[in-house]
């Protein structure tokens, strides 16, 4: 954080909420402090596509009024939250960092926006992302890249790089991102914050602009595990508006954070794909040692299909994306290029509106689903997906949780991987399998690696066992090296 001043406010979300509820701190003051931090450093970081200055102030004033009136303002009272700009906000531009959504203001709020409001939170802005969440560095944005607040020559990771950076830079105590192949966990690791992808279906996707529907999941960024648990409790729980939402109440996480890992069986995958940098591997080894010290048993397990996840993902995700992104045709919303007839209008709109990576994935996905290729590509990828789930299930017969790197490296320099899509795709090697299986996974900062940049350790548990994952994460957080 060399060239960035420390956050204006050094309070955790939980503390802010408690003090706002108690009337000790005004939500208006909190918002103004964070807005001031944004004002001071946003030019260097470029975390936001849009800062909602007026809306946030109005909302904070409403929270303060409610507190004054004695109302229960919720567990996130007065807490600013930054939203990845692929989550719909009523009347407020939602761009997915794409030109093609130019001018579009959704006529509705995403379910998570409703839930945040019900919890008393204040949406402070919409954060930058790789266009339509396709990327691992937040360099694929139509509005310019986001910089890592810890070293602005480096990327914050992606695709939720703006959300990760906003928390790391002290622009908001909390942010939400979406994770399709690692888009929360990898930027969390690179920015040194906590990032959580809960069980698929734990958080409603209604109002999240779809990239790959069977993989997309919303989750939080926070400075610590407790704050992540707090916001995840507020936004999770069944939503009848999302058919894939799990039919159960909100996750219960904040109560388990002190439970420790004594007696827990932690799996170390022996056949994990190679490619992690030595500094990262070293920190992960230390994490296993720390968990063993805390009373856990470390058990070697095999997940043979793990390494095929990346290939399967780069067929399944683009296939779904090719369909999800077909609606951007210039007919009903967003950008429309002028052309003499309908077909030419479609082509011109999509040619001008989408960036190169989005087009690449639409083509990949269209190809993978095409007659004559379906069985060899998409169909086979689905089989690999099932196989990975079976291998994970077999591992869970022996262990309670799996621990591994979140990212193969610390934050890399901007431009390092933009010329070679494959090298960029490899950033997601360790994060993708949990998207394919729907299992909860999170990244917790655990010391630093090369150049003093943070390393994230990833924890994965069986579906619906988000609380167990938080238990492990809280233990790792308590035992994290000082630097």
């Amino acid at each position, binding site marked *: 954080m060399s060239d960035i001043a420390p956050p204006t406010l050094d309070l955790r979300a939980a503390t802010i909420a408690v003090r706002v509820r108690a009337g000790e701190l005004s939500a208006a003051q909190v918002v103004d402090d964070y807005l001031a931090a944004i004002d001071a450093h946003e030019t260097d970081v470029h975390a936001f596509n849009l800062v909602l200055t007026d809306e946030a102030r109005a909302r904070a004033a409403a929270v303060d009024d409610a507190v004054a009136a004695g109302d229960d303002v919720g567990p996130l009272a007065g807490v600013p939250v930054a939203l990845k700009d692929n*989550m*719909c906000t009523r009347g407020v531009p*939602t761009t*997915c960092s794409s030109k093609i*959504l130019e001018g*579009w203001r*959704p*006529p*509705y709020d*995403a379910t998570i926006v409703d839930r945040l409001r019900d919890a008393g939170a204040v949406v402070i802005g919409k954060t930058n992302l790789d266009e339509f969440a396709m990327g691992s560095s937040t360099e694929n944005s139509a509005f310019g890249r986001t910089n890592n607040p810890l070293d602005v020559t480096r990327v914050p990771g992606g695709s939720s790089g703006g959300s990760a950076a906003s928390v790391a830079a002290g622009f908001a105590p909390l942010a939400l991102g979406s994770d399709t192949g690692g888009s929360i966990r990898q930027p969390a690791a690179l920015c040194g914050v906590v990032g959580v992808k809960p069980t698929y279906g734990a958080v409603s*996707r*209604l*109002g*999240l*602009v*779809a990239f*790959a*529907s*069977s993989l997309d999941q919303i989750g939080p960024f926070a400075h610590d595990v407790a704050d992540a648990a707090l916001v995840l409790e507020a936004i999770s729980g069944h939503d*009848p*508006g*999302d*058919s*894939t939402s799990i039919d159960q109440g909100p996750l219960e996480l904040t109560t388990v954070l002190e439970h420790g890992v004594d007696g827990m069986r932690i799996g170390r995958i022996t056949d994990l794909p190679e490619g992690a940098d030595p500094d990262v591997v070293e920190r992960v080894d230390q994490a296993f040692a720390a968990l063993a010290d805390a009373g856990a048993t470390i058990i070697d397990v095999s997940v043979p299909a793990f390494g095929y996840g990346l290939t399967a993902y780069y067929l399944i995700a683009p*296939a*779904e994306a*090719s*369909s999800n992104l*077909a*609606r*951007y*045709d210039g*007919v*009903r*919303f967003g950008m429309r290029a002028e052309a003499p007839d*309908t077909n030419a209008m*479609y082509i011109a709109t999509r040619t001008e509106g989408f960036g190169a990576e989005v087009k690449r994935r639409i083509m990949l996905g*269209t190809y993978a*689903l*095409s*007659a004559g290729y*379906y069985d060899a590509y*998409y169909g086979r990828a689905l089989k690999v997906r099932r196989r990975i789930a079976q291998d994970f299930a077999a591992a869970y017969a022996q262990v309670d949780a799996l621990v591994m790197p979140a990212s193969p490296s610390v934050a890399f320099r901007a431009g390092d991987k933009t010329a070679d899509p494959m090298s960029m795709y490899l950033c997601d090697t360790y994060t993708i399998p949990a998207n394919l299986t729907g299992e909860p996974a999170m990244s917790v900062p655990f010391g630093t690696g090369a150049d003093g940049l943070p390393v994230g350790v990833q924890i994965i548990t069986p579906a619906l066992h988000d609380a167990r994952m938080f238990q492990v994460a809280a233990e790792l957080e308590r035992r994290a090296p000082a630097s």
Partner: protein
Amino acid sequence: MHPVASLAVVTDTTTADHAAPWEHEGYEMVVGLEVHVELDTATKLFSASPHRFGDEPNTNIDPVTLGLPGALPVLNRAAVEQAMRLGMALNCTIQRSTFARKNYFYPDMPKAYQISQYDEPICVDGWLDIADGSRIEIERAHLEEDTGKSTHVGGAGGRIHGSEHSLIDFNRAGIPLVEIVSRPDMRSPEQAREYVSELRAILIAVGASDAKMEEGSMRVDANVSVRRPGAELGTRCEIKNLNSVRSVGRAIDYEARRQVAMLDVGDAVRQETRHWDENDGRTHTLRSKEDADDYRYFLEPDLVVVDPDAAWIDSVRASLPMLPAARRQQLAAAVGMEPDSEAVRVVVDRGQDNYVLAVGAADGDAARAIVHVKEAYAEAGDVPPVPAGDLAELTKMETAGEITATQAKEILTVLVDNDGGDPRAIAADKGFEAMDTSELEAMVDAAIEAQPDAWAKFCAGEKKAAGALVGAVMKASKGQADGKAVNILLNQKRTQ
């Protein structure tokens, strides 16, 4: 039974016309039908927008209908039930089913994919028996959403080619449809027409759809091929745009003849989609197989499996009403006609069979009632305004010979105009009095005496000659005499 009554009912012997199997130049036709039906639901298949016909364009829309970013479909349970109802009525198995995305670009397809059941439809392996006794097998019936409606302005005949611009109404987008796919079991235009008619009657009876072909809530595509009897299936063409039962028959007949003509000169039939033009009575190429879209189907990730449990299936099954075939049997038995007779078909199609049965239950004459209902109640709806008891009373008067058939019709007109009434009071008002048999016999004798030539001809077997004699009696009675009773008397006198 009173002799007059038996005369009254034998007039209706018309049954559906079962033509001989279609054959042309030694070829037979093979036809399978795909019928799209709009389900009767309050809201759309995946959103809460109203499902209504005829509203202002683009008023029944919402983020799901428009395919806005972030919108998600939620399956309408009522639509699933309707699909189950019609599937059960078609003797299908109800099974675990899924939805897929059918991807293609078209301005009236908001998401650029249609959500449709694909390889796992909810209803499979059923059948439908048609009037000629044939059983047409149903391969599947699956749920899908309708598209919006495009109106092309400025081109010839409303076609997109050459139009200046197009208007799109998304009210129809997302309306629940079921596509019912038959096996290629039909061999003539008549069978196809009967299949469509019977299917329509079933859909209406179970309340699954209003099945109005003219409003597009029931649309038929026909797969037609020809072959030498017993040979392998020929190459088929799919005909679109069949929006009446009559068009179905005409288009299939035309298309089969077209294919035979091609084969006869040594050409091969090309697999293609063809458009039926009602005006010129021909089918025209829409697109060939080579131009067909690759729909890139895959499982819809925004929806979950639909797997109705036994309790749900049983409760839907228990709610099914009696089906048209059974209702025709029931009505036919009550009125003493064939189930296939025109009056029985018409009255059941109109849903007026329960009314006729009610007339019978009120001690009326059901056989007379069905004739009245068929003729006088065409516009009356399924529950006619005249109370069944009033019509029962009228038929009793007829049976007792108190009024003639002509008088009965006149009274019925008054009853219909006034939503019922007392037939006896109306008869009295009109001065209809039962004619004494001796009085009528005297009039018949007078007519015979006045026209000996006619009587002689009648006795010689010239039945037409009776007309002059009956006419004379009617004139003498000022129309009060019962023509049928006069005929009976004349016949009796001839054989005496």
